């Protein structure tokens, strides 16, 4: 995802001299090409995420579209107040890019586990929060965020899903992407963990259950219509996120349903239960440990399908 983002941004920046990339001294071997080709549009702010975000706001207020870049929580949590007061409140064209969503840097420890970012950032006013699931969405989202004025957060992941060619059309921020159609259940997810969802639904399909899979790449603003339709048209909703359950995608989906007075036939959130992920390991390993791998999703879906069969 990271490489797809940099490739796309380089292409955009070649044509638009007002697009700029600032890194907080990270991106070895990744950003060099951009820096060499477009030196006037690249800046290493040093290890200073607060100042990086402030600089980005100043540059944006002066007419530029500025991407800030760092890994995991660094571009978000340290300068959160700068994102809120300076970027968002001024509707500045600052696009915060976090490389390493969820357990992408699983072996590096909790400092590098970005597992509260969606909840924290979606609570801010005047921000768009995006977590693409595959390379296509990453490229589309990068283009769309440049085209859309204002502040945004782009959560990129080490892993990415492999999705069907047929589903790669009509990307729009705030509009869920249907990866698979079905009515047994709807699984709503975002980020690279969507691959775990697709692995689970392949099994379910072989068992005769066709599930709808939504890539909710834009966590804020949420596609309410798609969520309500999922409740009304399918046997239940499962949300899957590589993120805490406190305030993330699952919470957003639940809030949307309750606010609209629409009850799904069944509902389950899969994600990190309020705890520090102090166990370390690969992204794949940690998904298993914390019950958000394809097997866990499969078991949850099977249980929900059996409940839904009993109740109907």
């Amino acid at each position: 995802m990271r490489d797809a983002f940099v490739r796309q941004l380089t292409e955009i920046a070649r044509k638009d001299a007002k697009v700029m990339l600032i890194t907080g001294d990270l991106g070895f071997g990744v950003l060099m090409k951009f820096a060499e080709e477009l030196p006037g549009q690249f800046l290493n702010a040093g290890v200073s995420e607060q100042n990086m975000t402030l600089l980005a706001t100043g540059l944006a207020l002066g007419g530029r579209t500025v991407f800030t870049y760092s890994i995991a929580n660094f571009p978000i949590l340290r300068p959160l107040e700068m994102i809120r007061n300076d970027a968002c409140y001024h509707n500045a064209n600052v696009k915060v890019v976090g490389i390493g969503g969820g357990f992408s840097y699983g072996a590096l420890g909790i400092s590098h586990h970005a597992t509260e970012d969606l909840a924290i950032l979606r609570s801010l006013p005047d921000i768009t929060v995006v977590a693409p699931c595959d390379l296509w969405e990453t490229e589309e989202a990068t283009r769309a965020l440049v085209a859309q004025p204002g502040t945004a957060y782009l959560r990129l992941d080490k892993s990415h899903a492999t999705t069907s060619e047929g589903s790669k059309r009509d990307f729009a921020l705030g509009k869920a992407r249907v990866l698979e159609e079905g009515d047994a259940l709807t699984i709503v997810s975002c980020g690279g963990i969507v691959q775990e969802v697709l692995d689970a639904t392949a099994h379910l399909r072989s068992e005769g259950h066709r599930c709808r899979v939504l890539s909710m790449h834009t966590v804020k603003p949420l596609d309410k219509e798609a969520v309500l339709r999922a409740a009304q048209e399918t046997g239940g909703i499962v949300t899957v996120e590589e993120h805490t359950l406190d305030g993330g995608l699952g919470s957003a989906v639940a809030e949307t349903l309750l606010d609209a007075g629409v009850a799904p036939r069944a509902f389950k959130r899969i994600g990190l239960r309020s705890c520090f992920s102090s166990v370390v390991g690969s992204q794949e390993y940690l998904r298993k440990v914390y019950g958000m791998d394809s097997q866990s999703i499969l078991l949850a879906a099977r249980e929900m399908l059996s409940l839904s069969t009993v109740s109907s």
Partner: protein
Amino acid sequence: MTDTRPLALRIRRHVVEMTHLGNSSHVGAGLSMADIVAVLYGRAMRVDPQRPDWPARDRFILSKGHAGACVYAALAETGFFPVGKLKTHYQDGSDLSGHVSHKGIPGVELSTGSLGHGLGVGAGLAYGAKLDGADWRTYVVISDGECDEGSNWEAILFAGHHQLANLTVVVDYNKIQSLAPVDETLRLEPFAEKWRAFGWEVRECDGHDHGALADTLSTPPEDKPLVVIAHTTKGKGVSFMENTVLWHYRSPQGDEYQAAQRELGVES
């Protein structure tokens, strides 16, 4: 040369009246920097109240946002919006918030209120202008207490490294912060040496002497950012407010309000 002292006096009267009407804090902080703001708006900066969005304007950022009343007063007195609007400061439904806000206020570039934000944004503006070869400057007023914030030193390091010669910072160095004198809280001295070590041109002056302020602000260096350490008196202009921690918070009411306005030459 324009005499900006009458402007400073009018700003002081407004600051006292606004904090009185709003029953609000920070009168001392506003009085401390009234002369700095008067010289900037009345003389040093290239601004046009008829064109607050003029692309070639100099940018002004108040990083010590709690002294917002002082900037609102300067903007109103120099024609950015009607002086009568100042009376809405701090009132229910007003857009003149206690800490300076840009929404609906012509002339305010940046909303602040949490310390340690203005200098970094100012450095971003200056860096962008330098890339564009634009000739406008960025001015940022910060407080002394605010220099406790690490984010400021990130920005100071950045501006020095990138030799942002189009950036001027004025420190309102009144030596009193929120709870106690700066020296008793976190010592800044040797203050000028710190800035110099970060690659800045440092000039010091009496922050209430308009001629000295104008001189130190003029002819900035060509290869480094400029900081003016303006030695000021917190609460300047109202004898009983001067050099006290109390008047960082206390709102002028009753006899104290009358006395303050009398000292500023307002007939009751």
